[in-house]
């Protein structure tokens, strides 16, 4: 009988220890999950801002270097980026999908930028619509009055 009680006691103690461990683990997992959600959102924004700044800085260098100048930059497009457009040759907009929904990171420039696929005042930048490392070519065209943004 003593042996039986000892076995039952061990089993109950084992269960209690496991329960307490799980009770401690669950809130930690919950708090970590929430932190990670917030950090991911900020990180995607920062990546998109870095891409836009890299491209426009390079485009301005090419524009002010004048006719026939060319530059290739490398950017890493995050998975959350799903489209990019140039509006009226002066706005570069990168569309990203976040936990809060679809959002745009927009850059404005005084130089004239374009891409190879334009419909009216909207140009599509397919190069930035899929994730991964991309080589972007910036080339001075129209006698140095415009910068063409394409993939290398």
């Amino acid at each position, binding site marked *: *009988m*003593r042996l039986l*009680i000892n076995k*039952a*006691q061990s089993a*109950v103690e084992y269960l209690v220890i496991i329960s307490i461990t799980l009770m401690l683990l669950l*809130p930690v997992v*919950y*708090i970590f999950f*929430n*932190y990670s959600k*917030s950090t991911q*959102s*900020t990180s995607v*924004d*920062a990546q*998109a*801002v870095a891409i836009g700044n890299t491209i426009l800085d390079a485009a301005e260098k090419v524009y002010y270097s004048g006719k026939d100048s060319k530059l290739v930059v490398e950017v890493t497009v995050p998975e959350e980026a799903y489209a990019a457009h140039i*509006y*009226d040759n*002066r*706005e570069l*907009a990168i569309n990203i999908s*976040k*936990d*809060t*929904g*679809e*959002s*745009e*990171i*927009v850059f*404005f420039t005084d130089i004239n930028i374009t891409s190879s696929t334009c419909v009216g*005042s*909207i140009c599509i930048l397919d190069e930035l619509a899929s994730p991964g490392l991309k080589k972007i070519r910036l080339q001075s065209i129209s006698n140095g009055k415009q910068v063409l943004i394409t993939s290398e």
Partner: protein
Amino acid sequence: MKRSQAALEFLTTYSWAFIVILIAIGALYYFGIFNFDTFLPQECVFSEQMECLDFAFVNDEIRFKLVNNLGENINITLIMVTNDAANSLTCTVPDSFLWNAEEEKDIVLTGCQDGAFIKGERAEATISLTYYSNLTPSKPLHTAKGRINALVN
């Protein structure tokens, strides 16, 4: 007789232990120890192009201060607010306004209701700003989204 007494003693001892543990857990729950949201920081997350400088949920208002880091004067045409609650959050939003580059703007959404926006509780609001630049001829509309997670004071 001896066996049944031992079994009864075993059950009695552990029953008391379990009852004490349950009461302790109940007391901790009552005092909000298991409301893990309180351990999370209050946050206001927008992109760095519209950096959030300050924020608060006060009574039925959502107040936040953003700075225009776009490097361009823009017109805010629409502000929308929502959240993930079953009856999502609704507020009265300000009219459209001009927002100059580098300018800090205090935005106040009033009459907020539903969406678990309850005084003393933690609430979340997803805010969407629609804007365009005056200098762009076709004035394309863009959307910037952010999230505020804070305690309603």
